[in-house]
């Protein structure tokens, strides 16, 4: 095993990790911070990829298409939240109803997508400037992977900044702790919840749109997303973006090296990691300091 090979596996794992982080960022926001478990997170990812396909073809421009898809997914999320999720806040056993409601979203969105766009596979191409590879030494990295890396980092930094360094962020984090109290303090809690949900689904849509050039746009593409995202945010600590980033990197690298050393069992390693972390460090690798700890 030579160094350049190990390095290329490492970087490959990193590239997987960044996309994984991008995909789970929305779930991290809504679950970790908003305390709403959006089972349908994968469906917004799916929606994002289809909207991107639609808008890219409409405007024949990749960037415009992606932005429209992100906004579209966000708006759709806000509408779903406003019409349906709102009604179950504060209910006894809210958690169970969140699951049921968001599961019904999955069924509805997935069928809607099939109805509008059909069952065939659609495809999105990478934008011209991101097609080739970049060469660093003897390692080749596709430009698109670098792009994803940059976008992922930007998102991690922005969210960290907004949540921890601004007033808005404090309010958002407070909704996870005590919604009623916050309402008493004069904050428009429903508006905050809707906005947060919208941002989270927009993130889901963005990740779907950006992942689409690398994958297939097909009904059913959202289902795997939820499992991977769950594992990442559990590893990283709920609501912690740096934790989610680290969690993604761990999962990415575990897979990258797992397929070399235990190829027969590589696909189960991420569950094993999840089990080990939950047994030994259930709050995740980056436990939230104070508040929100269950």
């Amino acid at each position: 095993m030579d160094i350049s090979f190990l390095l290329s596996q490492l970087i490959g794992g990193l590239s997987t990790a960044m996309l994984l982080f991008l995909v789970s960022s929305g779930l991290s926001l809504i679950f970790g911070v908003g305390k709403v478990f959006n089972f349908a997170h994968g469906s917004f990812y799916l929606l994002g990829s289809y909207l991107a396909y639609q808008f890219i073809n409409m405007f024949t421009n990749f960037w415009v298409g992606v932005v429209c898809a992100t906004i579209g997914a966000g708006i759709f999320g806000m509408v779903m939240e406003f019409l349906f999720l709102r009604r179950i806040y504060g209910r006894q056993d809210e958690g169970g109803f969140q699951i049921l409601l968001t599961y019904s979203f999955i069924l509805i969105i997935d069928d809607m997508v099939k109805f509008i766009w059909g069952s065939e596979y659609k495809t999105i191409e990478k934008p011209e400037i991101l097609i080739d590879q970049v060469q660093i030494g003897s390692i080749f990295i596709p430009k698109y992977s670098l792009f994803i890396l940059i976008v992922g980092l930007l998102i991690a930094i922005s969210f960290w900044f907004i949540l921890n360094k601004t007033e808005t962020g404090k309010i958002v984090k407070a909704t996870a702790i005590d919604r009623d109290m916050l309402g008493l303090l004069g904050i428009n809690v429903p508006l905050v919840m809707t906005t947060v949900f919208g941002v989270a689904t927009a993130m889901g849509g963005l990740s779907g749109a950006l992942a689409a050039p690398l994958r297939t746009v097909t009904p059913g593409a959202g289902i795997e997303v939820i499992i991977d995202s769950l594992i990442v945010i559990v590893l990283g600590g709920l609501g912690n973006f740096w934790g989610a980033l680290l969690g993604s990197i761990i999962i990415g690298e575990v897979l990258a090296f797992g397929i070399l050393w235990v190829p027969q069992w590589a696909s189960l390693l991420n569950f094993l990691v999840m089990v080990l972390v939950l047994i030994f460090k259930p709050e995740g690798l980056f436990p939230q300091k104070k508040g929100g700890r269950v």
Partner: protein
Amino acid sequence: MSKKLSLCVMFLLLLFATQSFAEQVVKIGALYPMSGRGGLYGKDSEIAIKIALDEVHKKGLPKGIKLDVIITDDQSKPDYAVSVAKRYITEEKVKFLFGVVSSAVALAVTEVSKNNKIIFVGTDHAATDLTAQKFQPYYFRVSNNTYQSMMAGAMYLKEMGGWKKIAYIGPDYAYGRDQWMELKYALDKLGVTYEVVGEYWPKLYEPDYTSYITAIINAKPDILVAGFWGGDTVAFIKQAKAYGLFSKMKYFHPDAGGNYEVMAALGKEMPEGLIMSARHHVNWPDTPENKAFVEKFYKQAGRYPSYAAEGAYAGIHLIAEAIRKVGNADDTEALVKAMEGMKLRLPEDPKGFTSYIDPKTHQIVQVQAIGVTEKNKKYPPAEVMLGKFKVYDANKLWPDFDYIEYLKKTKK
């Protein structure tokens, strides 16, 4: 009563009797995935079934029988599919079970077929088991099994020569594993020596193959054999292309790689020089039957068919021909006998060969054509299709009783 009146009454009665004869509807209960990733195959099958039914009814069936196909989404879940099959048999009173894309579902449904003595015509799933050690007399399959594609693949590799190192990547479940097992078996049988430099088992529907791609490139095989289907093929090719994998080794995908929906999804992104096959090709053979089938499908659907369509089409014709031979749709044992050895001229038959059902295993015997991708814009949105086809003799691919014995010993 006057003679005229009684004649009229008799005439009316006769008319009535022949009308009720003409109305005998024979139901076929089809199970297909209509949602999720397999939904495309279900949809294509549905369209092809309509086309086949039109043809069958135009030609007519004995006693004015009309075929009616009921389709239910089996959700690719074996337990749910069994419940639907029971509904088909005991409520809809179907005379045939039909279809199925997922081999796991097929294995569960074939049990229902066996226990209820209802003929089950499989049209898309390819697990060899069903026509080998899990054979039961009421099961027939009208599309090829993975052994046929892999044996043809092994022959191709033997003819090609000039390679030593081989690696395999396929989804981590029975379909992926069986293909690799069968390719190795076939290569060994043909006396080809090879060196396996890597085996990779991403999970089914794996979205990110990056780490696999970098590992494969480093293992430096001469040939990479792939066992994906559907969207996974598209994702893998897209991601592998970005790493330049295809210029470093030959990509070999003999069972489902060349399926039309993969070409259509990749468009101009599909690289040239990939060696692939499929259970039916839109552009091969260049026979009037195939052209007519593809055109009819395009007219109905607005796009070209994936290979699931031809399987469903063949299945309906198999049933129709059996009914014609026996004269009715009720004598199950006679229908089984009629299907055994039945010859069916299908769109995928080249000139000079007609597919037929092997009487001992109930598996359709047909040629396999392996091609190489090249530019071809005749079937948009695909821009690259298979060409330079090498055709393999159907009888050399199946039946292979040595392999069936091998399966009996190694699999439950």
